[in-house]
């Protein structure tokens, strides 16, 4: 018995020592993936470009705040995480960080003092970035950005999430992949796209599913679940890669148009994706947006220009899947059900009886991922509150869809939604007026 207790005590002591070591012994930082000369300098504009590709502004800028000065709340399942100030202000920003400190944050999720960043910072993905890009970004943040003194609200999650040391264990699993990029080698163009998608673009952060531990399930193209679709804040981030890709029907060029302008012949960017277009993708070169599209589609682009101007684009006719609905709407029988009648009275002017909309301006509703998503909140919200595609360099028009909250009651919106979800070959589950009421109430508390 005594022996047993002694062994137990010994184990406890070892355990406590191990735990203390786990908590207090600093994590080893990843080494640079490439040895660049000490006097290596990025090309003019390279660092800012990496900043755009990484969409740093979207998280690290508060609404109405100075760019990159942090303070934006990011809602996570664990609580609100406040983005940090990454301007070179020595007191409240990253002015005192060395390159090694910066790299550790980018690829290991570590603060200079060794504490763990919450994985709202997508270091799982930035881990794929080249040393050159990381250094260029560091150079830009240190020398190309004005320091802003802005002490942001400290993130204070509830127990146990406030015990950041726990992330060490999480990272053992989440960062099992080595730092550095491994191209599939399909083509130079597609490899470039893969690099942007896996690395700076951190697309997997939303578009890959998450496992039970909230880790990205699929961070590289070699994994089956890579970009197989995820859910973020009640919005479905559609599958972009592989056999079930939602963009299977889009050409490489159309995909690139969407990235650069938030709109194409099929769809328009909403929600989080609208912000990605606004703050990141519109600033990429045509070659890079085409490369991303080429990688996602597994096919090289045949053009070099994205989103050309001076185009007259006739709206498409109904296809086989949509013919029946189109015919019913065209007939406009006075005794048609409420759903299609509401569609005729409110929606058909832009989206047409074909459900095809019109290229680059009115999204198609047939097979539209938002329309048929299991996450019905965004569709209801767009009908109630409208939507806005941001102004971009190549498509400067703010494309605003008006809301219908004042015009349609909950039961009517439900009828309309159910019509949309069951027409032109769409086949998604029905919703109820209560679902609409919830979204309406959520909006009114904002």
């Amino acid at each position, binding site marked *: 018995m005594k022996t047993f207790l002694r062994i137990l005590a010994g184990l406890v002591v070892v355990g406590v020592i191990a735990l203390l070591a786990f908590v207090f012994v600093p994590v080893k930082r990843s080494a640079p993936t490439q040895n660049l000369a000490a006097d290596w300098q990025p090309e003019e504009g390279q660092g800012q470009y990496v900043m755009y590709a990484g969409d740093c502004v979207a998280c690290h800028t508060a609404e109405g705040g100075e760019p990159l000065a942090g303070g934006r709340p990011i809602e996570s399942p664990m609580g609100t995480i406040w983005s940090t100030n990454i301007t070179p202000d020595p007191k409240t920003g990253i002015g005192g960080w060395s390159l090694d400190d910066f790299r550790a944050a980018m690829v290991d999720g570590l603060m200079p003092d060794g504490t763990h960043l919450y994985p709202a910072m997508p270091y799982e993905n930035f881990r794929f970035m080249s040393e050159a890009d990381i250094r260029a970004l560091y150079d830009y943040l240190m020398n190309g950005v004005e320091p802003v003194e802005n002490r942001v609200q400290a993130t204070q999650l509830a127990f146990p999430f406030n015990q950041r040391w726990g992330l060490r264990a999480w990272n053992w699993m989440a960062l099992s992949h080595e730092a550095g990029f491994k191209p599939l080698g399909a083509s130079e163009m597609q490899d470039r796209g893969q690099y942007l998608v896996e690395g700076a673009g951190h697309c997997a952060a939303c578009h890959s599913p998450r496992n039970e531990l909230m880790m990205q399930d699929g961070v590289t193209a070699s994994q089956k679940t890579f970009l197989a679709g995820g859910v973020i804040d009640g919005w479905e981030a559609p599958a972009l890669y592989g056999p079930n890709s939602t963009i299977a029907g889009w050409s490489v060029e159309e995909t690139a148009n969407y990235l650069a302008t938030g709109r194409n012949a099929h769809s328009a960017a909403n929600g989080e994706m609208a912000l990605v277009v606004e703050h990141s993708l519109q600033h990429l070169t045509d070659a890079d947006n085409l490369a991303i599209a080429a990688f996602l589609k597994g096919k090289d682009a045949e053009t070099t220009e994205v989103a050309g101007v001076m185009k007259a684009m006739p709206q498409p006719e109904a296809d086989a899947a949509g013919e029946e609905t189109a015919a019913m709407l065209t007939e406009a029988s006075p005794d048609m059900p409420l759903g299609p009648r509401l569609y005729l009275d*409110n929606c058909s002017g832009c989206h047409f009886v074909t459900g095809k909309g019109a290229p680059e301006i009115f999204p198609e509703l047939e097979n539209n991922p938002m329309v048929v998503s299991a996450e019905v909140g965004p569709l209801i919200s767009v009908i109630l509150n409208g939507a806005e595609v941001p102004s971009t360099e190549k498509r400067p028009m703010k494309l605003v869809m008006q809301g219908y909250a004042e015009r349609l009651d909950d039961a009517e919106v439900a009828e309309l939604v159910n019509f949309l979800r069951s027409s032109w070959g769409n086949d998604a589950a029905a919703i109820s007026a209560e679902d609409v009421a919830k979204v309406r109430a959520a909006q009114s508390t904002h």
Partner: protein
Amino acid sequence: MARQEKKKDVVIVGLGWTGAIAGIELAQDGLEIVALERGPDQSTVPNFKYPNQIDELKYGVRLKMMQKLSQQTVTVRRNEDETARPYRKLGSFLPGNGVGGAGTHWNGLNWRPMPEELKLKSYVIENWGEDIIAEDMTIGDYPVSYDELEPYFTQFEKVAGISGYAGNLNGEIREGGNPFEGWRSEDFPMPPLPRTWDSQKFHDACIASGYHPFPAPAGIASTAYVNPYGMQMGPCNFCGFCERYGCYQYSKSSPQTTILDALKRKPNFSYRTHCEVLRVEMAEDGKTATGVTYFDEEAQEEVFQPADLVILSSYQLNNVHLMLVSGIGEPYDPATGKGVTGKNYAYQMNGGISMFFEDDNFNPFVGHGANGTCIDDFAINQIDFGEEGFIGGAYWRSGTFNGQPIRNMPLPKGTPAWGAGWKEGIGRWYGHAMSIGSHGSNLAYANNYLDLDPNYTDRHGRPLMRMTFDWHDNDLRMNQFMKSKMEPLAKSMNPDIMQVGFKGPGAHYDVRPYQTTHNTGGHIMSETPQEGVVNRYCQAWDKHNVFVMGAGNFVQNTQYNPTGLLGGLAYWTVQAIRTQYLPNPRPLV
């Protein structure tokens, strides 16, 4: 003492079509630009949103998008023997208000002038001699030719997103287009819109009569469209609410759909609304302007905005008024024919025939502002002026364009205007009427002009502008000629009832019923400073840093709606500013 704003390189007065064009083009040169707009800001959403916007009572009848006459108006008289009275109720013409200006509430008819119209005086003299020009007729040549303007018409049409079919493509006459139009270097940016039933019937009747029908050139999108600035339009759904309304559907060509969001991205451009410009301020030497003084509605105070370059791009009437109160150009004096500012005010001479067909249903609620089939067989360059005894011409059009319930219930004459008889008439005739319109020229005359009113002032103490205008025999004869040609065509369509409406001899201008918002002239272009207010680049002859946009530049009105010409002139002017004036500011002529 007025508040003073920080100096800008350019101040733009009025943010409608031409102000937006000046803004976006000059912004490319890195100039610091501010635009001042009298009215409110306006965007498709929320201002034009469905269904609020298609409220005929509010916008079609009560004219909520238009200039507030309590804020600004003109006085009107028909001749010098009358005392001009203020235009207190909108009627004959409807100037717009707010960002986008008249470009938000127009019908979308986008015509180019005929080459002959820009050289009208020479054209008449060469063909029939000077004698057929009446003594009081003050027509002239534009100091710029069709060939010179052609690239700028094309540029404007690309920006504005015009649907149509070229009839004269680089000199090649194409079946189905307008064979009498000036040459086009390129076809229309978008194909023509489909025909409604009335338009089809008119088309067929024209073919049977040997005329040459073609689709109206429409600032209405027939397809989805992306313009050279990357701005976008969506295909029109024929809702029929164009004129007097903003388009909720991104289908009508307007500054909102084609320029403004691109312009607002320019960091060197800004604009202020509810800022009514009161006058252009002049340097002591009198040769240049120093900026403008405006009334800031919010602050309720006068503000001086200094600028190196002043662009007057408000509505024609307001541009002329600003020039009169600011001393740009010598005011025109009809007694002596001397002076230039206010000269050659012109309008439009229209007429038409309504037809009722018991057996045809025209679904008049289906349409758009520039709907229809046109013919130019009686256009200015198709008429023997010597033979017919007038100078002028017209285009004809048929196609429902504003089939709204309150104002568009055409009934046969004699139908009671209310009660059971009216109801019965509506029941019988609603949807069974169509019309053909004649849209004709109005020339310039010595006694049609604009000057400052001696009696009335506005709330800022400025004299109101006075309009002296009446119809002249020449144009009324032109109108009667159109009647004589249109009646047989209408009869050939075998209507059950036909009603003819053409002004005839002795008709006088009536400012009450709506006619058209095509007010032109008053700061006309000219070869010499003695004949007009601005030179061929629309630069004020006497103030070289003042450029003036709009239909006020028209030497005399054309037979067409003015937007195509004023849009082309705006691009022509801006090009001259960018390539000639900015490198070396001076009088360009």
